[in-house]
């Protein structure tokens, strides 16, 4: 019997092998490396499912594979690679490998069938992207997580800039890399701070940093803090430093600006980035070290507020966008805002639940958008579309399922997860005014989400075709329809893994599978369970209308009503045969929204303000650092240019040199041997 930890390594290595194969075999591969990528991710998916089954059977993993550095003296830290397979990471493994597999298959239709150039590079990027995300998921310590986090960022850079000969993608890729890098800088400091404070960066076990932090706050252990700072304050600071990386990767306000630009990448890549890999990494990281965050009410409050604000803020920008993928980009930001809100308000399970359902329906929406883009010959402006419903039935119905899930309409997956987030926020917020603000943000985002989602659906699929392309769309093949169908089904039914409201209202036991799963009901690692987090967390629950069931019904009713209201408004405005633009009615707000609240502008202004410092650093780099390097090389170039003159090619010169050398040697030996002594 192969152990679970061996599975874990194989899961990560398979896509990596496909990356290496695509990198070195290049033009010798059929379909530019698509098949090896599909095979590798399919293998990863099977092994992930086996891992899931193993965790279901109570077999978890927390072990170190490879220690690559051991400290000495007081800093006896070990830096290592290892795997932590618990219910959370097993679930995430399945999500990531499933989405990656479907994206690979979809790429056959989106990239190969469209005759894109340089496919091995594309598939190499996808393989490395998948491998780094899977490595990040199984990471058992913060440093390993950081390393794979950076790899994920690198891959997003490579893939967003895939069409590097056009002007837009390279710039978007650089922006994505630099903005997330800015957040990662804080993350790196956070990693160092964790090491200095706890001497370990492990996520789980008795020697892990969440556990040590808990013990330190309880007075059972002592840890290093700078300048005798109170432990709780210091933990908050460390948590917020790591949160910097999360905000960058998960595109939370104010570091969300890279994500809409990242739409320049190929659409399957967008699906991968948004649903399963890059953006999910941030939220997953918070969930992974949740035991550390719950110790700090301040950090939790900040997470909740940032998340809630981002949810609403991004949703409003999605309302006016003209391009299909732009709308989806802002909805992604908004949805990850919800997850952060859930994490910040103690809804650990709700966040993971939304992460799961969102992965499916957002991958579905992006792949659906990709299908529409193929059909429209790469025109993305929704005002050029319309009436595609009958031409692309599979795309339409699956896209509709994804949209209903995104809008949070009963009984699609998004409804259950979003409702649980709002419910958790509400019950914890009743005793915590700060969370109530987050709840209001989240609630307000619901109708906006429904509105922009269905504006998108109506503009794209309904009404009369508004261009020649839309009248005669390009057909799509099985490799597009297949992934869409799988995800369409998942977007409808995934909500079923966690029917908490039904349980609470009707009292049916055992249908909140995800709650039990994350609560280690089938086995897990001590200290990484939702009840443990709830126990050490800062929040208490409060209920409205005198009871749990009543609160559930009230919350769900409010959010569903708001979602339906948004949907109805979208229907009224855009669900007609020949819709017109209504953005003029927004007045001055319209300009604000079109310009994304001038976020890019003010960030550019901040960047400009530090230009002097940057140019100073540039001078130092060019002059001193490069000067030394160039100096060394030019010295060796020059001297070799001179010395090679010795090689004249004339035999006599060589003989002369030999003679002189022999003479010199003889004289030297003679002197050593006793002449003149």
């Amino acid at each position, binding site marked *: 019997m192969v152990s679970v930890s061996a599975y874990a390594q194989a899961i990560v290595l398979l896509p990596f092998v496909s990356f290496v194969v695509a990198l070195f075999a290049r033009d010798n591969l059929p379909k530019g490396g698509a098949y090896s990528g599909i095979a590798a991710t399919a293998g990863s998916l099977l092994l992930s499912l086996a891992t899931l089954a193993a965790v279901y059977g109570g077999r978890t993993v927390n072990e170190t594979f490879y220690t690559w550095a051991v400290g000495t003296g007081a800093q006896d830290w070990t830096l290592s690679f290892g795997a932590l397979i618990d219910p959370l990471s097993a679930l995430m493994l399945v999500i990531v490998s499933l989405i990656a597999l479907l994206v690979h298959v979809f790429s056959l239709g989106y990239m190969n069938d469209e005759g894109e150039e340089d496919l091995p590079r594309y598939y190499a990027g996808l393989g490395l992207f998948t491998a780094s995300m899977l490595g990040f998921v199984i990471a058992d310590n913060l440093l390993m997580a950081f390393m794979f986090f950076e790899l994920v960022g690198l891959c997003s850079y490579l893939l967003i800039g895939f069409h590097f000969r056009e002007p837009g993608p390279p710039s978007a890729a650089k922006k994505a890399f630099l903005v997330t890098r800015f957040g990662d800088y804080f993350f790196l400091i956070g990693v160092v701070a964790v090491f200095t404070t706890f001497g370990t960066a492990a996520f789980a076990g008795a020697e892990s940093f969440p556990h040590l932090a808990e013990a330190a706050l309880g007075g059972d252990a002592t840890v290093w803090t700078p300048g005798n700072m109170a432990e709780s304050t210091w933990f908050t600071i460390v948590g917020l430093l790591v949160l910097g990386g999360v905000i960058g990767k998960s595109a939370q306000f104010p570091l969300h600006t890279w994500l809409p630009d990242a739409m320049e990448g190929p659409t399957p890549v967008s699906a991968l980035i948004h649903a399963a890999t890059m953006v999910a990494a941030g939220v997953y990281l918070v969930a992974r070290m949740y035991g550390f965050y719950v110790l700090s009410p301040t950090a939790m409050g900040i997470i909740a507020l940032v998340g809630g604000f981002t949810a609403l803020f991004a949703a409003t920008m999605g309302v006016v966008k003209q391009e299909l993928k732009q709308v989806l980009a802002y909805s992604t930001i908004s949805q990850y805002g919800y997850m952060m809100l859930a994490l910040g308000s103690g809804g650990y399970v709700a966040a993971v639940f939304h992460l799961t359902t969102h992965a499916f329906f957002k991958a579905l929406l992006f792949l659906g958008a990709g299908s529409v883009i193929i059909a429209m010959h790469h025109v993305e402006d929704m005002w050029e579309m319309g009436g595609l419903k009958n031409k692309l039935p599979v795309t339409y119905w699956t896209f509709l399922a994804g949209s209903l899930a995104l809008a949070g309409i009963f009984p699609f997956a998004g409804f259950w997860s979003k409702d649980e987030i709002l419910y958790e926020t509400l019950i914890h917020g009743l005793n915590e005014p700060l969370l109530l603000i987050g709840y209001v943000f989240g609630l307000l985002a619901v109708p906006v989400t429904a509105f922009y989602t269905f504006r998108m659906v109506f503009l794209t699929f309904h009404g009369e075709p508004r261009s020649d392309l839309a009248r005669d769309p390009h057909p799509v093949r099985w490799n597009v329809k297949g992934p869409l169908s799988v995800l369409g089904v998942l977007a409808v039914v995934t909500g079923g893994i966690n029917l908490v409201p039904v349980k609470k209202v009707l009292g049916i036991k055992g249908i909140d599978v995800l709650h039990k799963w994350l609560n280690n009901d089938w086995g897990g690692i001590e200290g990484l369970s939702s009840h443990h987090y709830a126990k050490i967390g800062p929040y208490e629950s409060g209920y409205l209308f005198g009871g749990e069931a009543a609160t559930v019904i009230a919350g769900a009713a409010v959010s569903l009503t708001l979602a339906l209201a948004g949907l109805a408004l979208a229907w009224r405005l855009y669900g007609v045969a020949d819709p017109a633009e209504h953005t003029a009615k927004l007045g001055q707000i319209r300009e604000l929204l079109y310009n994304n609240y001038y976020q890019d502008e003010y960030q550019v202004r901040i960047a400009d303000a530090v230009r002097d410092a940057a140019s100073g650093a540039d001078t130092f780099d060019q002059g001193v650092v490069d000067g030394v390097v160039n100096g060394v090389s030019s010295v060796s170039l020059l001297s070799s240019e001179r010395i090679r003159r010795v090689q004249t090619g004339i035999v006599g010169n060589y003989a*002369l040199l030999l003679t002189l050398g022999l003479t010199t040697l*003889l004289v030297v030996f003679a002197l050593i041997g006793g002449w003149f002594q």
Partner: protein
Amino acid sequence: MSDSEESAVAINPGAAAVALFGVLAGIILSSAAGFPTPAGFPADAAIVTNIGYALFDIGEGTVPVEGFLATFLIIGIALDVALDSAVYLAKREDDGTIISALTGGGNEVVDGEVAGTADTEAEAGLDHGGDD
């Protein structure tokens, strides 16, 4: 390389040989006292016969020597190879399709002629040395 360096080398490279001789002679003479008196060979020993024994490892000799049969055979083969290669190098392709293995600078042997080289009678005379 500058002209002055080249001429400096061309003027008197033989001086290096003289200098080497000076050094060698100095070393030999200064260490002459360290050499033992030559042992020499027995007066009645037949040196040539002994060398013949040594070449074929016969071991009948009276003067101390080692066996050299293997060396003898190897040298024989080496001589053969050297002669063959000399023949090969001297060979000329009359149909002019083969580029000599040692042709330098990309010169091609065309119709028995070196491209860019004037034909001479001496060359034709040399031709007979290697072939057939």
